[in-house]
């Protein structure tokens, strides 16, 4: 299926910082209200569900899968971790069992020399979990193909005076014969700036299919988010080759994370998970390409 979220994303990023939201902010006010005022009915009988959050990448490192449960809407505790699960990953060549990570409960890790291979399909199997608390153990499965990604040829940092922030430009070539999906993440001097799914840049390849990508990856560093770029800073960009399913999930997360209003927002829904048996979250396999730039502030046209 041909998605065009990239354009949507580009345009709506423009628009978000542009006139429409500016106008809305002039005529709207926001205040906190109580759950009773919002007619929230707190159902004590809601059954917890398993949440899977795991990634296998082409980096050689310790990969992890975090298992947790859904929590009460108004809970201020950390979400319950799922302990004692049996977690395996099978890439079609070997099956490995992940070890519980002793520092963080609910996290299961691979050996430190593990890495994903492009073209293989990674299958996750989670057993010995009783999420709904009915005394019977459940099994959950997820699959993700590990897509290839071309190298990042170079990275450049520009300043956008209308957004009052910095954009990261990426140069890479794009394979023409396949329909590809990308995620982007950035860091400044080793500190990850896009440390949530809702902050990742995502795109399909419709606008660049088969050509050179020269893309402001819709990652904006804004001073108000404590992201200030100075002369000499090292800005690193990671480009991920992701599956369409993961793209759809990320798209859903980004739709859910923003401010919702009757003009731009559809009815809310859970981002589409790839885990079976009614679980939430996503198990993703993807390839990583990275490059960096040293910021030359003299190039910024203020």
């Amino acid at each position: 299926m041909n998605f065009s979220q990239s354009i949507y994303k580009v345009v709506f990023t423009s628009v978000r910082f542009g006139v429409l939201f500016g106008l809305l902010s002039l005529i709207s006010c926001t205040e906190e209200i109580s759950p009773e005022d919002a007619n929230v009915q707190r159902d004590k009988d809601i059954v917890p569900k398993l949440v899977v959050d795991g990634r296998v990448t082409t980096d050689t490192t310790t990969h992890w899968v975090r298992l947790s449960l859904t929590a009460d809407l108004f809970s201020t505790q950390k979400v319950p971790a799922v302990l004692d699960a049996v977690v395996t990953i099978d890439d079609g060549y070997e099956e490995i069992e992940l070890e519980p990570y002793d520092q963080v409960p609910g996290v299961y890790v691979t050996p430190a020399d593990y890495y994903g291979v492009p073209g293989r399909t990674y299958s996750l199997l989670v057993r010995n979990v009783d999420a709904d608390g009915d005394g019977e153990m459940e099994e959950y499965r997820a699959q993700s193909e590990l897509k290839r990604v071309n190298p990042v040829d170079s990275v450049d940092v520009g300043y956008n005076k209308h957004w009052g922030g910095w954009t990261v430009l990426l140069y890479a070539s794009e394979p023409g014969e396949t329909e590809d999906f990308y995620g982007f993440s950035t860091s400044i001097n080793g500190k990850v700036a896009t440390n949530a799914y809702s902050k990742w840049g995502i795109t399909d390849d419709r606008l660049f299919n088969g050509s050179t990508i020269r893309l402001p990856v819709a990652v904006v560093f804004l001073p108000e988010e404590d992201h200030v770029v100075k002369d000499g800073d090292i800005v690193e960009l990671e480009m991920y080759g992701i599956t369409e399913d993961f793209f759809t999930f990320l798209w859903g997360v980004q739709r859910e994370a923003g401010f919702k209003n009757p003009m731009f927002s559809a009815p809310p829904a859970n981002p589409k998970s790839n885990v079976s048996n009614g679980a939430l979250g996503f198990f993703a396999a993807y390839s990583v390409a990275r490059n960096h730039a040293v910021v030359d502030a003299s190039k910024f046209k203020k």
Partner: protein
Amino acid sequence: MKKILTICCLIGLVTIAVGQGLSSNHEYTLSGYIKDATNGELLIGATVVITESNTGVATNAYGYYSLSSKPGKYNVAVGFIGYDTQQLVIDFNQNQELNVSLKPKSETIEEIVVTSEKKDANVREVQMGVQKLKPQSIKQVPVLMGETDVIKVIQLLPGVQAASEGSSGFSVRGGNPDQNLILLDEAPIYNAGHFLGFFSVFNNDAFKGLELYKGDIPASHGGRLSSLLDIRMKDGNSQKISGTGGIGLISSRLTLEGPIVSEKTTFVVSGRRTYMDLFIPLFADEESKDSRVYFYDFNAKVNHTINQNNRIYLSGYFGRDVFLNGDNSMDYGNKTVTARWNHLFSQKLFSNFTFVGSDYDYALGGSPGDGNSFTWKSNLQDWGLRADFDYFYSPKYTIEFGGQSAYHEILPGLVSGDDENSIYNEVKVPENQSLEHAVYLSNVHKLNDKLTLKYGLRFSAFQNMGATTVFDYDDEYEVVGETTYGKREIYKTYTNWEPRFGATYLINPLLSVKGSYSRTVQYMQLATNSTSGTPLDVWFPSSPNVKPQKADQFSVGLFRNFMDNTIETSIETFYKKMYNTVDYKDHANLYLNENLEGELRFGDSQAYGAEFLVRFNRPKWNGWIGYTWSQSKRTIPEINGGKSFLAPYDHTHDVSIVLSYQLSKRLSASANWVYITGNPYTIPVDSYVVGGNPFDPINPDGEVLTGYSDRNAVRMPDYHRLDFSLTLKGKKYDTSRWKGEWVFSMYNAYGQKNAWAINFVRDDNTKPMIIEKTYLFTFVPSVSYNFKF
């Protein structure tokens, strides 16, 4: 096409046969036009009644009437509400033409009410669920920022609600906003909103009147399920050059009208421009100072009376919204053109031939001058022809028939880089073309003094036409193939019979009971997944993958007038069943998506309710009190687990009170109060965390997402609001040619913070969930100065 031609011929033949067969040699006909004596404006729905037999007719949409009677001398009363009735003695000894000019009643205060032709038309007419409004009434209702707005007034009628706070989109009897056919001089308007929909495109000064049909849509019209809003522009003052205008807080407007050379040719031009952008520097920061936000409207019309048998009308509308902010720009607007020719084949057979064009387009642009710049365009064009005939066979039979054809062309979206160095490929969602045809025949049949029937049949056809590419989808809505069709190749045809039926039984002159049934079919719909929509939403046609929406509506009502017809009351109940209702999958992508049809999900919906209305038109008091109880539900197998859920426009209770009181000769006060059950919405039931990195010390946990259960299972808080206004007329209002008045108004006078949006926000795992309510418009005062000369 052949089929349609055949049906056209058949209808023609039947009509002639009926005409011949029923024709009586012993009757003579009186016919002509009825006008306003002060400005020559043709009066729609004025009545011509033979007092002795109490038989009569009403003028049609072009002010024409034709009344036949047996020979004899009779008293004939020509009347229209708000005008002095003229009593004439007519000798029906030959066919004769008589144009009548009526004088407005000198002492009437301006009615704010929904008016009807005859004082007791509410009780007598067969038509149900229809409301008529005139510009002077609309003007009296207090509105947001003093911008007089027909659509905001319509939203105060029973069975009609705003799509969301301040929106010019409206829902009729639980239907979607795109199920309303909005016609401006017969040209369809595809986006009736300015400024993100907070104002409508209709400049009140340019209009003569409007009619809203809430279900029992006449057979002459179709193509939408829920309602017909028929807005007609003024014809222009034939007596003298005159003007109306106003200076308001956010906009000014001016309308000029008058005769050209002789009273046979008249014109109207009307313009409006907002100047909100002038205020931006006052409160904007440095970066936004060069922003521009404005809209403008232009209406024009020229009419020419060639002779008693031929008149021509040419009218047009052009309006645009412009948003500019540094690199980014957005503009959108409608253009329409209407050319009409009225021709009398005989005194009894009135015809109107119409050519219409309508165009809606938008364009977004960004970052001009560097490789990132792009333009995003979308465009919808309509061209149509229609022929309508009114056959005034006798006071007992008024037969209408005709046909129409329209061509729709939609470019859903085109994004392209602006220069050779552009980094973007061109992305284009293929254009689609379609044809929509209909023929109809209807008759208002007065069986006797008590019982009147109205029956009609409409036959509609819709055809998809190349050149385009159509995708095939499997059960999972994935594309499994595509077919390309050549230019002008018809690749899908839908046909539908649309019966319309109504009956009125007059129990006594003040009390009647009415019933109606109508089937409506809709072939064009708006792709929007939010309740109020945006200017970027795109219309899409029925196609091999999208079946036409259909509705069956049954309605029963009781109508009773009191106190010399100055108080009208009615109860109308309705039940509406809709088929092939369109909804969207979760997180659907409706923009620039050539596989839009794969994002659609189909089901059925139903709505039912009761509408109570009390209107009064007392010497000092005017207004109405409306109450609606209703329910509107959808069942879409692939949404909400197949369980029925409330339509986004479901409101159990809806109360509107609209009052105007004449305090003194110069001063009048108006107020309206609305109370509406809160919008249904979907709330989270639990929360969870994804996207963290246990090895990243800054954000080990990830972000909190909320989990959802049933769609539209709870409601936002109930909505209520009071608005009021004071109108102060100039001292010499009645004597001077220049008539000026000041209008002071307050929108949301007690500052109710009505929820426009409710968001559940939780910044991280350990902080509590916060519920945020966003509201618009509290205490919006405004002042405007209106004038006419």
